């Protein structure tokens, strides 16, 4: 992270299942065994009921763009040659929200409310969940 390279995910006991799912091409979030709540970001306990037991639940990977920004400022060496690029706040159909990007990173056709589905992109040898627009399609035509 400090060498200026890509900010690599740090796998811990709590988020390992998320990143292992991504490795396998499956978007998963935690499902609380106490109350059934689906949660992201990964946490050791459920913020709803504070239960410490969970399983990893595959989700559809479909959702909508709650908001987006286009970064022009060169904040970080790994991203400096990619400006301008987008960052999006995605609401998954199943409920949880996450931060990601819509491909292409430089894409200009973003809008709030846009339908998206997850894809798995390669970033310096690490698989990272990103999204593509499914606006105007049924979203089911392209394989991941």
């Amino acid at each position, binding site marked *: *992270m400090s060498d200026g390279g*890509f*900010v*690599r*995910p*740090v796998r*811990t006991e*709590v*988020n390992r299942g998320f990143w292992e799912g991504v490795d396998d091409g499956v978007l998963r979030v935690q499902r609380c065994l106490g109350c059934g709540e689906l*949660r*992201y*970001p*990964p*946490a050791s306990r459920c*913020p709803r009921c504070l239960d410490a037991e969970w399983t990893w639940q595959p989700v559809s990977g479909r959702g909508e763009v*709650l*908001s*987006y*920004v*286009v*970064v*022009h*400022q060169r*904040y*970080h060496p790994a*991203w400096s040659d*990619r400006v*301008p*690029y987008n*960052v999006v*706040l995605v609401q998954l159909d199943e409920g*949880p*929200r*996450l*931060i*990601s*990007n819509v491909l292409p*990173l430089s894409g200009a056709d973003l*809008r*709030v*409310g846009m339908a998206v589905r997850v894809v798995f992109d390669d*970033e310096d040898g690490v698989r*990272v969940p*990103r999204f593509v627009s499914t606006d105007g399609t049924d979203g089911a035509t392209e394989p991941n």
Partner: protein
Amino acid sequence: MGWRRAAISGVGVSRQGKLPDETPNSLAAEAFVAALDDAGLRRENVDGLLTMPGTKSPEGAKHYLALGEQLGINPRITGSLSMGGATAGVLIQQAALAIDAGMASTVACVFGDTAKTGGSRFNAAAGTDTDSWGIWGMFGNAANSAFGAQRHMARYGTTSEQLGWVAVTMREHAALNPDAIMRERITLDDHQSSRMIVDPLHLLDCCIISDGAVAVIVTSPERARDARSAPVDIWGMGQGHTLEKLGRPDWWYLPHQADCVSDAYRMAGVSPADIDVAQLYDNFTISVLFWLEHAGFCAPGEAGPFVEGGKRIRLGGDLPVNTAGGNLSESYMQGWLHVVEGVRQLRGECGPRQVDGARLCLVTGRGMTLNTASCLILGGTA
């Protein structure tokens, strides 16, 4: 009317700008001495010290130890708190509660930083306990506010030009403030042609970064009436915080800001129509729009038209906002100067930028990405 069980009896401001020979604590001491003088107090009168470490303070959470040693204070209450732009309000509230409870009689709340000289860029990756959002290129404070701006635009038709009117109007106010750092007037065209930082936020949507310090002396209303300067009473106080971020569905709309302001109104026994002047935390222009809505000065979604043309929010308008220039143009003291300007307006000390007959001022702060918020309603006695 109003809570009025504590008051602000002194404010002190150090030099502001780029001050390469100073440290956060040397500036904090300068502000502290100025605040004592403003209140007509001696250091020995101060029995509480609450501090906010600067971004370049090496002591972190132990900041009160170093500053207390520098100031020669052995206080009855002390501590340091880092809640970003909400901290000034929160510390003043803690001081007020301690005074009301009899745990201290006169509390200095102090902040100092050398963010400009020290090169603080406010560019850290945001994120959660488990994953940095830097994985997706999300860095810096602007991106978080830009999410809110973009959604406000999509949902309500708010425009970049409307945000620009906030920048232009705050600069007009700064031009009337001899202590402001950015005093050269700007136009809407200047705003629109300033480079994009994080779309939809341009450079002129962003606050400046500065070195400097501020101290605020809080005491009982009775003691404040013996001070050198006119006392300013605390009528209402409130806080609200969203710590879950992604876990709260409307996080982007800062629902905790509405909570903190409504608590303060209730405590003060007043409504938005009673407020004469407002100092609204403006790390970015969009923040002013959110505060206008959350504080009830306009309905949700109507802040864009409210600020358009600057007519309502400028001096002489229905609700003069950030009359000293704010974080955008006066100096970036993370909301501390918003308190100072509120006090000075209520004392009638503001010369060409004075709001005639200002009697009640709403002061807000917000920090830590989008997460913490505080509000003070201050009442003048001058």
